[in-house]
C-alpha cells in the first residue's frame, strides 16, 4: 500500500467515522448480548440454588421463610435474616448453614437452647425435610419448597 491510512482518512473523514462506528456497533451488540445472558443467568442461578438446596425453607404457621443464601441467621435482632420477635429468643440465636448439599443448624445463642424434633441441640446437626425446630415458643417446620409439599 503506498497510501497511508492517515491520508485516506483525511481525504474521506466520513469513511473513518463509519469504520469506527461499524466496530462500535459490534461491540455494543456484544454488550447487549452479555446483558441478556446475565439476565438468563440470574434465572438459572435461582433455579440452580433451589435445586441444590432441595428447595427447603422454613414454615411457621402461615409464614414461609425462604433460605436464599448459604448462611441464615435467626434471632430477635432486627438485623437477623429471620427475625422472631419473642423475648425468650436471643438476639442472635441460631445459624443455618448450607454445605455438602445439606442444611445445618447451629446454636449460636448464649444458652437459651434449640430443640430439633424435640431433642435439645448441643452443637449442630443436619436438617432434613419435615424436621421441627423449636426456638423459644416458636416452632418452625422444614418444608420442601415445591408446590406439593407446601400444600400438604
Amino acid at each position: 500500500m503506498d497510501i497511508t491510512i492517515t491520508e485516506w482518512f483525511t481525504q474521506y473523514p466520513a469513511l473513518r467515522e463509519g469504520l469506527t462506528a461499524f466496530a462500535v456497533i459490534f461491540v455494543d451488540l456484544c454488550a447487549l448480548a452479555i446483558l441478556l445472558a446475565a439476565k438468563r443467568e440470574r434465572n438459572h442461578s435461582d433455579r440452580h440454588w433451589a435445586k441444590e438446596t432441595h428447595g427447603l425453607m422454613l414454615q411457621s404457621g402461615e409464614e414461609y421463610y425462604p433460605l436464599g443464601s448459604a448462611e441464615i441467621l435467626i434471632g430477635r435482632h432486627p438485623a437477623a435474616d429471620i427475625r422472631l420477635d419473642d423475648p425468650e429468643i436471643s438476639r442472635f440465636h441460631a445459624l443455618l448453614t448450607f454445605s455438602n448439599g445439606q442444611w445445618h443448624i447451629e446454636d449460636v445463642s448464649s444458652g437459651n437452647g434449640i430443640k430439633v424434633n424435640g431433642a435439645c441441640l448441643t452443637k449442630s446437626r443436619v436438617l432434613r425435610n419435615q424436621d421441627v425446630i423449636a426456638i423459644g415458643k416458636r416452632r418452625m417446620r422444614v418444608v420442601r419448597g415445591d408446590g406439593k409439599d407446601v400444600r400438604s
Partner: protein
Amino acid sequence: MKESGKALAHPLLMVLVLAAHAAMLLVILPMGNFAEWVKLACAVLTMDFIGSIVLQLVQRQACTVDTVLLLVLGMSTIYQSCFGGLEFAWKHYLFGLIAFLACQVSYLVVRNPYRAERLKPLWYTLFGILLLSILLLTGSRGIWIDLGFITIQPSEFVKPIFVLICASSMQTQLKKSSVLGIHFVPDNLGLILCTVLIAAVQWWCRDLGSLPTFAAVALVGLYLRFFYLREKFSMRLVVFLGICGIAACIAAWKLAPAYVQERLHSDIWSDMTGSGYQQVKGLVAIAEGGWFGKGAGAGSLHSVAASNTDLIFASICEEWGLFSAVMAVILVLFMPAAGLTVPPRSYYHAGLTVGVAAVFIVQMTLNIFGSCNLIPFTGVTVPFLSQGGSSMLSCGILAGFLKAAQAPQFTIPVKKGGKPNGGAA
C-alpha cells in the same frame, strides 16, 4: 427445570465476542503492515478460542464475567497494538492471556467460600510477605522489584490478597474473643491492623496513588462487617464515620508531601510543557479525537510518556473516539456489575464482590478523571485496558473472585471418618 450445564447461551456469546473482535480487526486492516495485522488477528482470535475451551472445562454455570473479560482483553490488545501505527502488542497480549488463566485459577481457589475463609491464615501470611517485600526488596522507597528480566510491582498483588482479607463470613463474625473484658472479633481486628499497615507502607514508599484503592476496599469491607450485626441502619454511625472520613481527607490533604501538594494546586494550562504536559497532551488528544476518533494508528499521543498506561483513556479517545472509550470503560464496569444480576450466596463472596467492585471502580476513577484533570493525576491503571504485567495479573485474579461469587460451591472438606468438619460436627 433445565440441566444446569445446558441453560446458557454460552457458545452464541463466544461467537458474538469473536464477531466484535473480527469487526475491529477489519476496521484496522487498511492501516497497512499486513504481517503485523495477521499476527494480531491470529493472536486475538486464538485467545477467544482458548478462552471458550477453558470455560467449557472449568465451569459452565456463570459466564458473564469471563465473556466480558475475553471481550475486553481482545479489545485492549487491538487498541494497544494500534497506538501510533500497527505493531502487535505481544506483551500486553501475553499478560492478558496470563490474566485470563489467573482468573480461572483464582476462581477455583475461592469458589468455595468455606475453604477460602479457612485459608485466611494463609492470606494474612501472604499479605505480610508482600509488605515485607515492598519494604526490603524494592530499594530506596520504590514500588518496583527489579528482577533483571522483569520488574514486579508487589503492591499490585497486595490488592487481591487485601480483598480476600476484607471479606468475612457470618460464622467468623459471630466468633468473639474477650481480652480483659473487652469483646472483639479477631478477624475485624486483623483487618484494621492490615489496613493500618498497608497505609503506613504506602505512605512510606510514596505510592500514594494506590492508597485510595486500599482505603476504599477497607471502607466497604468494614461497612459490611459492622453493619451485618447492627441494630438498624444507624444514621449516627454513618454521620460519625463520614466526619472521620472527611477529617482524614483534610489531614491527608494538609500533611501530604510537597510533590503531592504541587499536583493538587497546579494549573496544567499555565504549565503546559512542565508538570501539566501529559494531561494537556491527553486532553488535546481527546478533543482532536472527537466522537469517532482520528482513526486507528492516526493518533499522536503515543509519543507522550505513559500514553498506554496512565493516559489510556485519552489514547483510546484519540484514535477510536470518545464513544468507543466510554464503551470500553462501561464494559470493564460490567464485571463488578455482574454481582448485581446474579446475587452472591454467601457473606464471604458478597464481601469479595464488593471489594473487587471497589478496586475496579476506584482505580478507573483515579486514572480517567485524573488524566482529564478533574482530580489530581496519579499513576494508577485502568483494569485490563492499561498495559502492565503486575496490574493485569492482579486484575485477572480479582475477576476470578467475581466469578466465584457467581458460581459458588458449598462443600466442606471431609475429615477421616467421613464426617464434615467446620460448621457441622
